[in-house]
């Protein structure tokens, strides 16, 4: 049984320091390089932060263009996460290929069902690829798109572009409905015990997703939180970040997003990760597809490793429906761009939900350049370290108390952590009765 767990983020580059002194417009491109599988997320958050700082309200058509690009990223991510990152845990892929060799034997699907899903693993490669193709129609290229910017996007919708996107979307939707959803249900059927493990902290949060359109209203979910059995509105002023257990100098140990940027200190005693500890009202909160589906009332089955995987697949289906609405709302030829001026000094925040959960960019402009840039990613929420009061993060909490059947092959741990769709390498330590039994590395 896992007595204690620490999630370690073992990669640090220092984007917040790098951004200082650069042109604010460049942040839209620069921050994308934080991550290759969700780069669109950062371009959108950055554009929102800049719009907030410059006092610009993007025209609705611009928002549709940008959100379509963003929606494509959701589809790419969720299909890849399900088939390339999740399925190999539960479905035996062709063992002749060295990439798929695995030594654990907790594969429970009967051969016929196993092989169907294994085939879908390969079929899905073209589908997720086509999601990026669809993204590039408006976004120029993927990863690291060019279309998203202040005001919406630099690209225009043409009738040809719209019909091309519709056709790709139709194909993706068919794959999700006829293969991905049934595959997820099949896995859930044979691994029912995963509904009982990996619960985490039980608190859920969203910054809002595909919401607050003038004419369309909210297509998915508003900024909400779930805690103690109740849903309530999100209050951004309750967001803090804590670095008690992270490799940063302790001054201050807790701060609000606009207040401070932590300085790295790899020699800090008691720290074990580069990942900080975002908190809402001082508590850890889980973010991601399960949080969103729960908060909008679309999925309330439970909070567990398997619930997370199911919610992600159902969200993929939902995003195809949202994209269709947005595509149908496009007016061809609309140009959302103006000549934007950078003020001498300004403050702005861009907060939205993206593939893995809530993402925030907070910018301060001074002397016409970036003076301060704070980024809190969804993986920081989910794989958060312990805060000062020793509350574990959602990922850590999800692992603690898990019964591991075979400590030589602790398959449960990887499956639980990967249900969060983590965007970092992380390691888990299994402790039993106070002594370190072994360190298990789990890499997403």
């Amino acid at each position, binding site marked *: 049984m896992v007595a204690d767990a620490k999630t370690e983020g073992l990669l640090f580059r220092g984007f917040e320091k790098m951004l200082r002194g650069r042109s604010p417009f460049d942040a839209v491109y620069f921050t994308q390089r934080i991550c290759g599988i969700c780069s669109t997320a950062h371009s959108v958050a950055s554009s929102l932060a800049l719009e907030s700082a410059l006092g610009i309200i993007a025209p609705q058509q611009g928002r549709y263009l940008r959100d379509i690009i963003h929606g494509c990223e959701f589809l790419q991510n969720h299909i890849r996460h399900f088939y390339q990152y999740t399925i190999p845990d539960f479905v035996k892929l062709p063992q002749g290929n060295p990439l798929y060799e*695995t030594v654990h034997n907790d594969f429970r699907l009967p051969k016929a069902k196993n092989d169907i899903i294994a085939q879908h693993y390969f079929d899905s490669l073209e589908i997720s690829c086509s999601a*990026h193709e669809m993204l590039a129609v408006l976004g120029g290229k993927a*990863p690291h798109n060019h279309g998203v910017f202040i005001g919406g996007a630099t690209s225009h919708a043409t009738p040809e572009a719209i019909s091309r996107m519709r056709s790709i979307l139709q194909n993706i939707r068919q794959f999700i409905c006829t293969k991905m959803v049934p595959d997820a249900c099949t896995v859930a059927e044979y691994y029912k015990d995963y509904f009982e493990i990996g619960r985490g902290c039980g608190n859920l949060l969203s910054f809002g997703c595909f919401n607050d359109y003038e004419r369309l209203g909210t297509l998915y979910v508003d900024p909400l939180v779930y805690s103690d059995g109740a849903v309530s509105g999100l209050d951004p002023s309750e967001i803090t970040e804590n670095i008690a257990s992270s490799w940063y100098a302790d001054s201050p140990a807790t701060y609000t997003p606009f207040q401070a940027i932590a300085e790295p200190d790899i020699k800090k005693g008691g720290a074990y990760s580069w990942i900080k500890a975002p908190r809402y009202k001082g508590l850890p909160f889980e973010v991601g597809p399960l949080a969103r589906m729960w908060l909008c009332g679309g999925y309330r089955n439970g909070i567990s490793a398997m619930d997370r995987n199911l919610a992600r697949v159902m969200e993929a289906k939902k995003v195809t429906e949202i994209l269709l609405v947005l595509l149908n709302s496009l007016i061809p030829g609309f140009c959302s761009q103006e000549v934007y001026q950078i003020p001498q000094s300004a403050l702005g925040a861009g907060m939205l939900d993206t593939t893995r959960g809530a993402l925030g960019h907070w910018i301060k402009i001074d002397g016409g350049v970036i003076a301060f840039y704070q980024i809190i990613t969804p993986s920081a929420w989910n794989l958060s370290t312990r805060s000062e009061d020793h509350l574990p993060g959602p990922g850590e909490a999800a692992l603690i108390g898990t019964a591991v059947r075979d400590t030589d092959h602790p398959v449960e741990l990887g499956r639980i952590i990967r249900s969060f769709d983590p965007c970092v390498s992380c390691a888990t330590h299994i402790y039993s009765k106070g002594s370190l039994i072994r*360190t298990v590395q789990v890499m997403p």
Partner: protein
Amino acid sequence: MNQENSSCSFLMKLETASMLFHRAAEAVRQKRIPKRNLIWLELTGCAGNIISLLDGANPDFKGLVLRLVNLLYENSLMAAEGGKAMEKLFSAANGDYILAVEGAVSTKDGGLYTVIGRWKGQPITAARAIQEFGPKASYVISVGTCASDGGVSAASPNPGECVGIQSLLERKVIKLPGCPCNPDWFLGTLAYTVLYGEPKLDGRQRPLLFYSTLIHDICPRRPYFDQGIFASKPGEKTCMFKLGCRGPVTRTDCPIRKWNNRVNWPIGDNSPCIGCAMFGFPDKMEPFIRYDVT
């Protein structure tokens, strides 16, 4: 050599990657050449290059792992995890292998800013990984700008003290910059290498196959430049020279090859080139967006 390649017709260049790939895969199938081992390391970076590789279309990722090579180690995609994955990495290095690396190498504080796993109780830093697996590889290919030259990971003030992988290796690295590297550039270079050995490289160790022409020289918006018709902001259809477009200094075939199954490319999207495949990206290519450079 330069002359020869840059005078190739564009049509031939467009088919280069798929042609080479199918030729190589067929040679493997007929056992005229061995199926080589490939190790892919993700170091200090965003893993955008493996995602870009997954976005390949004719040639594609499926073809790579089923027909061309044995992909022995790839952090994100392999089924094995933890200690078992590390075992595979270290045992793969005992035989013949080609090493593809994305991400720079963080050197600060003994390299502890990037740890890719643990082996025999020790953290394997990106620096250790490169020094362990680089020298013995039959070829080393740096995929993406970070591995080739530091890239965004090394952007000022370079908190992780990141460097491109060549800085830590004596032996030659074949460099494929790009942010990310276009899957055709990687798959085409890999196919050429297993068929014929090292391709002709320019003075920056980039294959002339893919890195010989300036974007500006083959840009579809060049007539606007030549007539002095310039865009005043992104979103317009004319030449973006006055917005700071880096097409005039960037040496890739993006205007022809485009991205994501030839669907589009940054300039086609009415936004300027930011020189992501250039040495010195991002610092020397910034600011990316300006309204009227002149």
